């Protein structure tokens, strides 16, 4: 279960686990609860996340698509390790997400 904080209209979600195929169904449910609750600015804190596989990348893209394309929302990725920053670069997704 992710750690979730709400402050000034922004939801910060910290999964604290790897975002890989075996975890995607549970994480997707958590994201949907946030989005369906009307929140449209989400920060995903990736401290504690060592690995994201292509299923996890697909999940993050689908959340971004829901927020940005249909709700005018924003998604930001925070506290990525060097390896994860490189992964987004290798996958040519570093300009698709706001990465801090």
């Amino acid at each position, binding site marked *: 279960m992710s750690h979730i904080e709400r402050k000034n209209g922004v939801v910060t979600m910290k999964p604290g686990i790897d975002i*890989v*195929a*075996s975890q995607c169904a549970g994480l997707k449910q958590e994201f949907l609860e946030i989005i369906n609750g009307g929140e449209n600015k989400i920060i995903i804190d990736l401290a504690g996340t*060592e*690995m994201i*596989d*292509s*299923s996890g*990348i*697909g*999940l993050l*893209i*689908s959340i*971004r*698509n829901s927020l940005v*394309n249909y709700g005018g929302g924003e998604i930001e990725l925070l506290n990525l390790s060097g*390896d994860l920053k490189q*992964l987004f670069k*290798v*996958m*040519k*997704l570093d*300009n*698709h997400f706001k990465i801090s």
Partner: protein
Amino acid sequence: MEDFFCSQTGSSIACNFASSLVNIDRTVDAVKNFLDRRDIVISQFELVFVLREALNNAVIHGNDNDSSRRVDCTLRLARNTINITVTDQGKGFDWRRQLGRTPVATSTTSGRGLNAMLRYGFAMRFNAAGNTLYLTKKIR
């Protein structure tokens, strides 16, 4: 047959498991443990990412998440290379067509796995049917 089992020699680890996402995690943990005890120079992140993609493809696409079908995964350390073989019990796929595809758009949620393995510098080949994947990368 057991749900999951692995065996090791000094230079290889072989895992065989019933298709499930949890068993992918178990295989990755076993391989990480195997590599932690050996003196090789390779990015463990890159290796684990590529291994996960290969196993995800075998379980999800090859075996269609059918737990009665099994996946066989072997990692071998040779003098200058690391070699991974992943076999599923599905009918295979047209890997020639898949490898020739244009990379997916940034907003597309799937279809990145094979491309990602190549981008991390792993040489890739398949058997004719497409249900065995061979990956190789040079190591020091």
